[in-house]
């Protein structure tokens, strides 16, 4: 097979893996998919892994990913028990699709979808009815935008496809859980999610990522969400990867007229984590909420980049990201809001707050407003601080001990984001998880 682009030491192994993948699969696949995949790998080979000279990656070095080769994950599910998967999935009720190492795992999945709603592995829809996804796949996550999206597109094989027909209201949450489990080798999976919510439909989708504690692997996920006219979609991303894993997740949201979308991005795991949310309000009357909460300790790094693109008039966006940092943890927040010349009467609000529980934790935070319309309301605020000593004393003076007082304040800080989660079971399980993590995170560094 002729390669169109030169490889570098960092990208070469991935290109070789790509060649093997294409050889194995191309005979049975639609040509548009082959082309899409080829565009992805070519762009990746062209761009290479980003470096800190790239403005978008200024504070996040991806060297831990680029300087080694993660082999393609295999279907093996060693060490995974139903108990473990149940714990990651949470008792949310509703439909659940589980993929292990990027491959559909029916034994962990739970059925029960309302009539007309389609949820399946991406691999199965590509095999049975590729025309259903062709109009969407790769259209909102352009392969030339982001090297990791390009890489994901190159290796696009499996993931999840969610289709909510027009006018359908799905009461129960739909869970998509991506588990990585490869105890022997450090491997990579490239899960791809496509969610299409038809006009006037309504759904809540929980996208989870998890892996056994201590395992090293790389998850490179891309999600595309298409929100139809008048549709309401609540999206929850729950990242509980192993604390030694690398996780790059990019979500591309495209909304048309009067669409309502909310994203709740909760990040607890991972050694090196980058989340991109890119939301385009491409119809009048849209209303988008992007919320996020991350908890990071040790020497881990969590980077959140968000872009809200107001392309049409009369749309609102509300953004609130909060981080809790301890130890030598690092975090990055970059919140871009674009208001296009046409997007008059935009109302955009962004808040970013970080709580530093140790002197050695560090955050780089940047609002980035690019406003090309003149009749708009855009506000942003960033705050970085420590626990309020006066509040701690007040609580202690009422009988709570130091640890209880700190936990209560951290919990309150996170509450701004957690209280907006509209799936009760999910909110409760996240609160419990947060509280269980606090005994470590809440203590001053010198006690650890």
């Amino acid at each position, binding site marked *: 097979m002729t390669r169109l682009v030169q490889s570098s030491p960092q990208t070469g192994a991935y290109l070789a893996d790509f060649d093997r993948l294409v050889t194995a699969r191309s005979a049975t696949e639609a040509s548009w998919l082959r082309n899409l995949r080829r565009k992805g790998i070519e762009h990746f080979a062209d761009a290479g892994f980003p470096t800190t000279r790239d403005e978008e990656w200024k504070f996040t070095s991806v060297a831990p990913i680029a300087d080694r080769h993660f082999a393609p994950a295999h279907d093996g599910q060693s060490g995974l028990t139903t108990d473990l998967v149940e714990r990651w999935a949470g008792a949310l009720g509703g439909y659940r699709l589980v993929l292990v190492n990027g491959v559909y795992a029916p034994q962990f999945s739970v059925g029960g979808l309302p009539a007309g709603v389609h949820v399946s592995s991406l691999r199965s829809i590509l095999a049975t009815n590729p025309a259903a996804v062709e109009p969407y796949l790769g259209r909102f996550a352009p392969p030339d935008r982001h090297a990791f999206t390009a890489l994901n597109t190159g290796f696009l094989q499996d993931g999840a496809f969610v289709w909510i027909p027009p006018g359908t209201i799905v009461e129960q949450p739909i869970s998509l859980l991506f588990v990585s489990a490869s105890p022997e080798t450090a491997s990579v999976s490239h899960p791809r999610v496509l969610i299409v919510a038809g006009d006037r439909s309504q759904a809540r989708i929980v996208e989870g990522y998890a892996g056994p504690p201590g395992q090293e692997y790389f998850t490179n996920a891309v999600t595309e969400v298409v929100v139809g006219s008048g549709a309401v979609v609540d999206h929850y991303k729950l990242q509980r990867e192993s604390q030694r894993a690398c996780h790059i997740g990019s979500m591309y949201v495209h909304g048309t007229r009067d669409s309502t979308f909310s994203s709740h991005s909760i990040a607890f795991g991972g050694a090196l984590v980058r989340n991109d949310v890119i939301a385009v309000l491409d119809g009048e009357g849209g209303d988008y909420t992007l919320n996020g909460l991350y908890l990071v300790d040790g020497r881990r790094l969590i980077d959140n980049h968000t872009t809200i693109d107001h392309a049409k008039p009369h749309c609102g966006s509300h953004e609130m990201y909060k981080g809790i940092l301890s130890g030598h943890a690092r975090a990055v927040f970059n919140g871009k809001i674009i208001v296009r010349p046409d997007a008059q009467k935009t109302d955009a609000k962004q808040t970013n707050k970080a709580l530093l529980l140790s002197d050695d934790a560090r955050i780089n935070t940047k609002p980035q407003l690019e406003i090309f319309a003149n009749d708009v309301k855009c506000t942003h605020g960033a705050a970085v601080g420590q626990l309020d000593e006066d509040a701690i004393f*007040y609580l202690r003076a009422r009988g709570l001990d130091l640890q209880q007082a700190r936990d209560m304040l951290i919990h309150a800080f996170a509450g701004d984001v957690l209280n907006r989660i509209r799936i009760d079971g999910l909110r409760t399980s996240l609160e419990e998880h947060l509280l269980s993590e606090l005994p470590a995170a809440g203590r001053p560094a010198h006690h650890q």
Partner: protein
Amino acid sequence: MTMLDIHNLHVRVGGKPILQGIDLCVDAGEVHAIMGPNGSGKSTLARALSGHPDYQVTEGEVSYEGRDLLAMDPEERAREGVFMAFQYPVEIPGVNNAYFLKAALNAIRKHRGQEELDAIEFMALMREKSTLLEIDQSMLTRSVNEGFSGGEKKRNEIFQMAVLEPRLAILDETDSGLDIDALKLVANGVNAMRSPERAIIVVTHYQRLLDYIVPDVVHVLSGGRIVKSGNRALALELEDKGYGWLEPEAAAAAPAAKT
């Protein structure tokens, strides 16, 4: 029975000496008023007794029910029955007032070997105590003190005191900034707590509060020392004459305290 016995208490704040030898004895069942001009050390005394970390005791002893109060952490003092109503109650965004108070009450009950209250028992207690101070339900579900008016904050302090039922209550200028209606509510709340087993220390700048909470003993603080003690008539005299007439006595009582 002596509840609180303060002997020769010296306290520094930010390295600066503020209290310079306080001697004070409070018996169970008594209400003591501590008055004095601005900067005399009234609030320093209250905060030092509550265990605020910025208030450094450099000399002296404080015995509370026969135990060394100064050796206790702030939470242990609270659990042992010491309550300070803050001069400036702290706003705690995101912490629900009722949730906070339930956690505090149960921490105290647990310390005393009592059963913790469940949600239903606690709500019943809240309803009972909130009526007296005209605390409405919305105040209970809001974040602690957040967005409360000055009067609401002070009422919330006294409400907490009513729920936690301390044995020694220290009110740090609870009357400042209150209009007459709020002052009466607060005074009613405090008077309802008076009992032979409980002592109350009222720190105030103004005599007015003492029209409603009638003290057994009045002390005047000046230059970090108690320069005069007396009965309620002393407070009225201060109202009449101000604090100026005490200055020579203060100077005589504390020649070293001049700054």
